[in-house]
């Protein structure tokens, strides 16, 4: 197992490098550059040349990449071409703001979805199941920008319960942001819960149909006890990959939500930086996102390993051909 973790870490580093490399050269290929973008209609050739010189954009591309790599390894991601501030500081601030939305969404979303999934699975075929299933289906079929727009309309403009927009921008404090966190978090929960609910429901149904659950019920153990103490915990296992994918996806989902609410998080920073061609920020965002993705996947694998001992031996070299069923679940 230690070998597995080491291998994972090694490939993760490669992944991070690849992500940074890809972003670097993609931004180089973008039409226009930071100087032209910032100056807009005032982009006379002299003004552009002056700004390029000030920003150090007149040096060779490869040289710049290698320099960036060197300082990135020590944690210094350079300074933003647009604001002149330290990239690590801006990214960290934006990331923490996004976390304010993401963490409650994850906690409430996962907990709520698991519960609803178990309920729907346990009461399969009843109106509870139908309602939950239909709601989940609708929730996963409506794009989140629609949910966000409707929420703003209903709960911020028609009935000013929550703020429609975050006014304070990047220097907003936690206190300013908290009331503005609710609607974006609700949007995210709506978007990701459907998949978890459906997966958990399916898994619960399967769990209730296994031999030992049926046997336990026949032996007289109360159904509720069978459900919550025996079936539910193991039913979570196959849902873990679904959860980890959804959590990793949040980083992308947060972009739309932050755009609608003007929320000063990582998603909004990403869109703004693409628009202004602010390369150092984009690279740092790419690396950070790849890191989050890798960490989340690793965590999910570790949890699965911890809970299900069978998985630990899955990758040991075998001498005999493997029985099909044991490898059905994706490695």
């Amino acid at each position, binding site marked *: 197992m230690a070998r597995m973790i080491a291998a994972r870490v090694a490939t993760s580093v490669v992944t991070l490098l690849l992500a940074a490399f890809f972003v670097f050269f993609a931004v180089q290929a*973008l039409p226009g550059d930071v100087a032209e973008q910032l100056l807009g209609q005032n982009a006379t050739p002299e003004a552009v040349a002056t700004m390029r010189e000030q920003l150090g954009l007149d040096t060779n591309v490869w040289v710049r990449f290698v320099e960036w790599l060197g300082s990135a390894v020590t944690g210094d991601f350079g300074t933003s071409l647009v604001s002149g501030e330290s990239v690590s500081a801006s990214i960290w601030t934006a990331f923490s703001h996004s976390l304010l939305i993401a963490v409650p969404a994850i906690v409430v979303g996962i907990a709520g979805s698991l519960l609803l999934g178990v309920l729907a699975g346990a009461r399969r075929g009843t109106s509870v199941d139908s309602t939950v299933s239909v709601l989940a289906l609708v929730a996963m079929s409506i794009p989140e920008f629609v949910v966000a727009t409707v929420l703003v309309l209903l709960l911020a403009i028609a009935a000013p319960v929550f703020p429609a927009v975050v006014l304070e921008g990047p220097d907003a404090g936690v206190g300013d942001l908290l009331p503005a966190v609710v609607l974006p978090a609700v949007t995210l929960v709506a978007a990701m819960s459907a998949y978890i609910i459906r997966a958990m*429901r399916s898994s619960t149904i399967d769990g209730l149909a296994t031999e030992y659950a049926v046997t336990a019920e026949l032996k007289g153990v109360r159904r509720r006890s069978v459900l919550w103490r025996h079936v539910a915990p193991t039913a979570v296992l*196959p*849902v873990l990959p679904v959860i980890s994918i959804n959590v990793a996806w949040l980083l992308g989902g947060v972009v739309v939500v932050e755009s609608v609410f003007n929320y000063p998080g990582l998603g909004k920073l990403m869109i703004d930086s693409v628009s202004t061609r602010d390369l150092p920020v984009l690279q740092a965002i790419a690396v950070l996102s790849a890191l989050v993705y890798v960490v989340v996947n690793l965590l999910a694998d570790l949890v699965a390993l911890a809970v299900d001992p069978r998985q630990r031996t899955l990758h040991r070299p075998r001498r005999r051909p493997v029985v099909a069923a044991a490898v*059905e679940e*994706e490695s």
Partner: protein
Amino acid sequence: MRSVLRRFTALSLGTRVGLALVGVTVVVAVLAPLLSPYDPVATDAERALQGASWSHWLGTDQYGRDVLSRTLEGGRFALLVSLLATTLAVALGTLVGAVAAYYGRWVDGVITRVLDAVLAVPSVLALLLIVSVFGNSLPVLVVAIAVVYVPAVARVVRGAARPVLTAGYVTAARARGERSLPIITREVLPNILDTILVEFAMRASWVVLLVSTLSFLGFGVNPPTPDWGLMIQENRTALTVAPAGTVAPIVALAALVIGLNLAADGLGKHVGVDRARRGAL
């Protein structure tokens, strides 16, 4: 024909409704130029933001364009891109996944690591960059979206192909000395076809949502082309005074995606693939 009908009625109600919804949407999108009462890009400023009337069944938007015509044609771009992108993603993903599963060991290892790396780059960022560099024409969007989804498809196909590869008839074929490609196409693929089909239906619903999100963010189709995501973005400020321009595309989009999801669910169950458990991947 009759056997198709019989197979159709054998499916559950949900699946049938799903397939019907998708079918209707596709037919409407294809026939839209014939069905639309007005040219969807024809402006008529005197009659902007009007409500329903006999001449405009769903009213008009801020430039006086007929909402009904724009809604009817609004699915064309998204459907075309989704169809092409999904087909490309599934085709490429199947190839990659099958190859990885077939050759195993270090080929499999390298492919899996590369796929992981591609998956790690946040898809939204990758799409934004690709569109900013290459523009938002149809081929670019199709390829960009396909690239984003190939790793996921490849992983699923790989997972489904591995058990098949250890089955007797494949081993026999290898023992007979048959070359790899015929084995993959003749023995492996037909047996994982059902998985691929379900993948297709599932992936299509995601891609439709993604295309509309891109249009909403301004990276998809350009105005004044009618497109549901773009219509929602353009008309949402008028939501309180002339909601039809926003609500109609929302309902149309939701109907299509619900249809795709229902169809994917039903088809999956029908062929024994538990889609819900496969979940978001």
